[in-house]
């Protein structure tokens, strides 16, 4: 029985996958992809689906591959940079293929909102010879998920369902085929031994022509699918995919009879490019506008096709400056691009565009509101401790300290007044970068910060390398017992699986000990007088010659409260403002030049430990 629900794109994908009969789902959290696996976890028991948060995206993909080799239907979820981590197995897998079905949800992040790159998974699919579906709405995401499983099974090839932030994190009314997810049918005969599962140069050489043949078959199939559609009869063509196609449709609403002026080709199955459908569209138009976020992927596809078929069509897109190369698109930006193209080919018509009602000068200047470490966050205590330790070492030995950061909430330690992140590149990079810096800056101390989940994701090989090659670095592990930034998922260190059942908790100190680290300290940051012991451990580690590790154990203020709050004793406070200026804690505020502690205090007690007048104390109990 069909039902209409309000679903976020990621939830719609989860329901689509369950309906398609997915049996094994793996992934690593990453904005904007996380909620897809979280939703499947909610139905896992009831529907009989195996789910796991894997230690990283490569491991997640390989686990799903094992399931698909056995004839099962598998899904693996990640954000776009996660695909880089998983790219090694993926590139080989395209030659081997799969048996059951294997779908990758990869969420791109134009803008970017929460990512370190603006890479385009459509182009990645092209590079890896793996089909890519590009939905525009939660409804399409739901339907294309089911299509992805069908195609993967039929063509025995992994399929990428590529979303962007405005698909994954948009909500919409979605019509689903079954009102409540039902148990999935366990299919698959189990693993059958065959030489096809063992990659060798000879097998790759044999499979390469097959792989190229599949691309052609898929391109033919895609040309017939309703996800690629043509509307309008005008001589000005527009091609778009994903959410950009919706922006084009909305922009065109501002002119009457737009269907007589424009022909819109919406591409839902972006790779392999549906050449046949595109060709019949291109033959009916004189000029072509390309509206797409991220890479000029469609633009390159149509330019090739126009060249190959010798068509007299001029193309207006990113490559000749009509649309911005980067950033997230919207209706206004697409309107401006189309208008620019219209003016370039001498059309008098314009789509209507908006002008702000109030000039900016009339409005009060706005302070920047950047994301910040939460009040009571343990990372602030550790950053502040290293700042003090580095200051002391500078005084004693003149040595500077370079602080390498990593990916997670603690990247926010870069902000004023902490200023404690000098480098940040990708998951797990801080440890190895510190090693490299130590070779070229021998006079400076090297400290790398890494979160607990990131440590398990990709920090361990870097620790092994530091030991093997004798890098003189200090690794500070910020162990807040959760994957905080993406919404508090469990990880290998905390003794809970994705479903919340007990598992073996892997101790980070044990891991680095077995890697050969000789200086290991574990410090508890939860106690209200922990700053002193944090500074002491930091300094000892930095003074140690060779690789050293300090594991700072605490809790995430976002999920665990201390149960108390602090307040300022007005009679003792001199109004020096030291607490406010040193810590940048959002609970501390200067009101009429006197510090006050606001409601958001979660009772870590860091400010009480640094107050020169001992004017801060426990105010009471907070539930």
């Amino acid at each position: 029985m069909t039902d209409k629900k309000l679903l976020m794109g990621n939830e719609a994908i989860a329901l689509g996958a369950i309906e398609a009969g997915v049996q094994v789902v793996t992934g690593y959290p990453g904005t904007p992809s996380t909620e897809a696996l979280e939703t499947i976890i909610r139905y896992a028991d009831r529907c009989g689906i195996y789910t796991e948060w894997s230690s990283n995206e490569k491991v997640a993909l390989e686990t799903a591959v094992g399931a698909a080799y056995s004839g099962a239907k598998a899904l693996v979820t990640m954000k776009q940079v996660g695909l880089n981590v998983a790219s090694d197995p993926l590139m080989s897998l395209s030659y081997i293929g799969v048996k059951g079905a294997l779908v990758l949800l990869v969420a791109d992040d134009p803008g970017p909102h929460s990512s370190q790159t603006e890479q385009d998974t459509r182009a990645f699919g092209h590079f890896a010879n793996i089909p890519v579906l590009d939905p525009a709405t939660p409804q399409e995401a739901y339907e294309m998920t089911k299509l992805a499983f069908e195609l993967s099974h039929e063509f025995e090839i992994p399929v990428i369902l590529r979303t962007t932030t405005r698909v994954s994190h948009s909500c919409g009314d979605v019509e689903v085929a079954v009102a409540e997810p039902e148990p999935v049918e366990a299919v698959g005969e189990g693993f059958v031994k065959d030489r096809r599962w063992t990659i060798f140069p000879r097998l790759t050489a044999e499979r390469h022509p097959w792989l190229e043949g599949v691309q052609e078959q898929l391109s033919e199939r895609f040309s017939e699918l309703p996800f690629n559609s043509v509307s309008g009869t005008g001589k000005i063509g527009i091609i778009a995919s994903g959410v950009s196609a919706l922006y084009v449709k909305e922009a065109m609403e501002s002119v009457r009879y737009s269907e007589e002026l424009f022909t819109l080709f919406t591409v839902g199955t972006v790779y392999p490019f549906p050449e046949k459908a595109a060709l019949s569209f291109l033959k009916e138009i004189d000029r072509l506008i390309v509206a797409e976020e991220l890479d000029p992927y469609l633009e390159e596809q149509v330019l090739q096709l126009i060249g190959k078929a010798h068509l007299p069509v001029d193309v207006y897109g990113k490559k000749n400056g009509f649309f911005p190369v980067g950033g997230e698109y919207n209706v206004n930006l697409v309107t401006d691009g189309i208008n620019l193209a219209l003016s370039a080919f001498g059309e008098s018509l314009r789509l209507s565009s908006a002008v702000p009602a109030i000039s900016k000068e009339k409005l009060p200047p706005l302070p920047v509101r950047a994301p910040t470490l939460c009040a009571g966050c343990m990372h602030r205590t550790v950053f502040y401790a290293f700042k003090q330790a580095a200051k002391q070492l500078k005084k004693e030995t003149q040595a500077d300290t370079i602080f390498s950061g990593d990916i997670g909430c603690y990247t926010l330690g870069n902000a004023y007044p902490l200023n404690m992140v000098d480098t940040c590149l990708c998951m797990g990079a801080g440890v190895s970068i510190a090693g490299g810096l130590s070779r070229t800056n021998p006079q400076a101390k090297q400290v790398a910060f890494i979160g607990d989940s990131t440590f398990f994701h990709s920090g361990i090989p870097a620790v092994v390398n530091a030991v093997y090659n004798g890098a003189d670095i200090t690794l500070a592990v910020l162990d807040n017992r959760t994957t905080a930034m993406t919404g508090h998922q469990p990880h290998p260190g905390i003794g809970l699986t994705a479903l919340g059942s007990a598992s073996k908790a892997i101790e980070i100190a044990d891991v680095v000990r077995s890697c050969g680290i000789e200086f290991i300290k574990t410090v508890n940051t939860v106690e209200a007088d922990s700053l002193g012991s944090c500074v002491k451990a930091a300094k000892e580690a930095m003074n140690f010659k060779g690789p050293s590790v300090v594991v700072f154990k605490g809790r995430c203020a976002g999920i665990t409260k201390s149960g108390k709050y602090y307040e300022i004793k007005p009679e003792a406070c001199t109004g020096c403002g030291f607490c406010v200026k040193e810590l940048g804690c959002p609970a501390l505020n200067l009101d009429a030049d006197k510090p006050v502690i606001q409601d958001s205090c979660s009772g870590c007690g860091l400010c009480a430990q640094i107050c020169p007048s001992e004017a801060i104390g426990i105010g009471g109990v907070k539930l």
Partner: protein
Amino acid sequence: MNQAEQKKFDLLITGVGGQGAILASDIIGKAAVVAGLPIRAAETHGMAQRGGSVVNHIRVGETYGSMIPKKGADLMLALEPMEAVRYLDFLKDGGVIIVNTQPVLPVTVTSGQVKYPEVRDILDALSEKYIVKAFNADELAFEAGSRLAMNVVMVGAVSGYLPISKETLLESVKALVPQKTIEVNLRAFEAGRQKVEES
């Protein structure tokens, strides 16, 4: 204007990460589905939620994208005064702004780098071109039983403008807030609705 056109309503919810803008947006979204109206909503997740500026787009009766074009929003629900100003470009001329007057100070202000503008100045500037309904929603939530219900006060405040019945919205509140806070949230909704009806 046909019936579908009349039911089109673009709403922008602005605020600070942690104030509950996503729940407010989900309450309205779920109610729209129950009312049989198409809905599109864009939410801010991820890094910005750590105390950063957030904006949610809610488009009742919309079948295209979830992002409201500039000067497209009929109404802006600002959970924080400064965040009303930040996204003003999205509001149509003469549009309505319902604003919670309780500031949430960013670290750039608390650490003394810059001053927070006077709330009075913000409201005066906004009132020049828009219809402004301003009140302290944090206090109303506190009176209703919990400061955490501020987002639901604001949903109550906008409820009279939405093409969705009050009853449907209340059902949605009940379905989405934690079980033990239903009473507090229903009071919060009424307090917000009444505040705007009176003004």
